[in-house]
């Protein structure tokens, strides 16, 4: 680990100012990913601005939505009674991720900004365009069982590891961002980027911008869940995960939200599957056709072709559960 300056920020404005002033500065949340990457010298910040003292409030807004301070821990968000009752897919996604110890440390803001778990990204001796732009990608022709089937490029086939973000994408949550030039909001589904030719870029955040909160819209669907498929029953990253909600009215699907985890460089909102389902009567055939519409563009690598069938079956199973 390279040495660094440490400062604890007492306001978002102070944190942004501190990161602006120091070259190669980074915001520090729970540290569960950043500290690990610093130890491996994959991350080399020269200054850390601790933002865990900023807003961690989880507050129901006048319009019925919820504003979640970015410093809220993963545990605090999953434990919140309003979240458990009205946004169960979010509570379930968080509880499916990491371990209790890590959820106690990790912040909501940091969860959005966690880096991929691609083996070659973590191995400094391997080629990785994300770690060193233009150096190549050892995952494309390497051990790529855990890698992306959707939206990948020849430069990068890494996946985003978060469970929480998959639920946030399905819920149409908004990321509240503050920078030196003011504030802005970005939908979670548009916050992370596809790798393309610049896999080192992972989000739309500009240098120095800080995530201050996540906003959940009011009136979420009542039937919703999160299902995670992984190599062991607990404490493992998703091979495939599905966050979904369905509202059936008069025998046809009035509203449906589906997002996939473990399949792409970002939480993957399954807009093609959603479009295929709207107005249809719920049935296994309709669910399967919708899943196939979404996965028609999937491209398998050497070891991860199983994810295409797994994603199809998981989508169908989740939609059946929600409409049973």
């Amino acid at each position, binding site marked *: 680990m390279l*040495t660094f300056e440490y400062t604890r920020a007492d306001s978002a404005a102070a944190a942004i100012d501190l990161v602006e002033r120091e070259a190669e500065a980074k915001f520090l949340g729970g540290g569960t990913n950043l500290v690990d990457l610093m130890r491996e010298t994959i991350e080399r910040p020269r200054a850390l601005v601790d933002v865990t003292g900023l807003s961690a409030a989880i507050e129901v807004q006048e319009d019925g939505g919820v504003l979640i301070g970015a410093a809220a821990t993963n545990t605090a968000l999953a434990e919140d009674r309003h979240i*458990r009752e009205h946004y*169960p897919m979010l509570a379930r996604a968080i509880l499916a991720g990491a371990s*209790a*110890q890590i959820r106690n*440390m990790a912040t909501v803001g940091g969860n959005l900004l966690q880096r991929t778990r691609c083996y070659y990204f973590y191995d400094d001796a391997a080629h990785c365009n994300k770690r060193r732009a233009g150096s190549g990608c050892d995952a494309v022709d390497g051990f790529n069982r855990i890698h992306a089937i959707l939206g990948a490029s020849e430069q990068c086939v890494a996946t985003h590891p978060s469970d929480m973000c998959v639920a946030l994408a399905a819920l149409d949550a908004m990321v509240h961002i503050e920078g030196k030039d003011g504030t802005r909001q970005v939908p979670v589904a548009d916050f992370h980027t596809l790798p393309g030719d610049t896999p080192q870029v992972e989000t739309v955040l500009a240098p120095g911008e800080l995530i201050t909160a996540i906003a959940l819209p009011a009136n979420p669907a009542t039937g919703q869940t999160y299902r995670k498929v992984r190599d062991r029953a607990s404490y493992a990253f998703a091979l495939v995960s599905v966050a979904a909600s369905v509202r059936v009215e008069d025998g046809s699907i009035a509203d449906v939200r589906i997002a996939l985890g473990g399949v792409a460089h970002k939480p993957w909102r399954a807009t093609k599957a959603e479009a295929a389902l709207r107005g249809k009567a719920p049935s296994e055939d309709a669910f399967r056709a919708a899943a196939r519409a979404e996965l028609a563009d999937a491209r398998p690598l050497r070891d991860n072709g199983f994810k295409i069938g797994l994603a199809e079956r998981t989508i169908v199973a989740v939609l059946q559960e929600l409409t049973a």
Partner: protein
Amino acid sequence: MEFTINGSTRTFDVDIRTSLLDLLREHAGLPGTKKGCNQGACGACTVLVDGERINSCLALAVQYQGRAITTIEGVGTQDALADIQAAFVEHDGFQCGYCTPGQICSAIGMAAEAKRGLPSHVTQDLAADSVTLDDDELRERMSGNLCRCGAYNGIVAAVRQVFVEEVA
């Protein structure tokens, strides 16, 4: 850097990069907390901070200044074992013992979480006010602590004996 460790206020002058784990083991003279993977995958380094369990290997000590840290040395002593420590002995909840301090600190934090109604991945009813700690719940809630000797059945038995009735 100042901390309250096992009830005593302690001050240290250490490198800014020092993890809470290394601070405890190398500077506070408390080697009971173990360094397993040092990357947040095994749970051997689990300690309690203000009563909540965390992985001390992933914690920069500087971030936890002023907080109350409890390590295995603060749970019980050789002459006065805590109930959970005695239960691990009784049920053979270990073989080599390396993961045990983390298992025990984790179990204490787990019991507090269950008592206040925090659901888990295997909880059916997210809206329920209380948690019933059956063995599936115990295994899920303790999944952040690996035991390479495979003493899991003994660990579950020990944790069940001490904490299940207390929660229910």
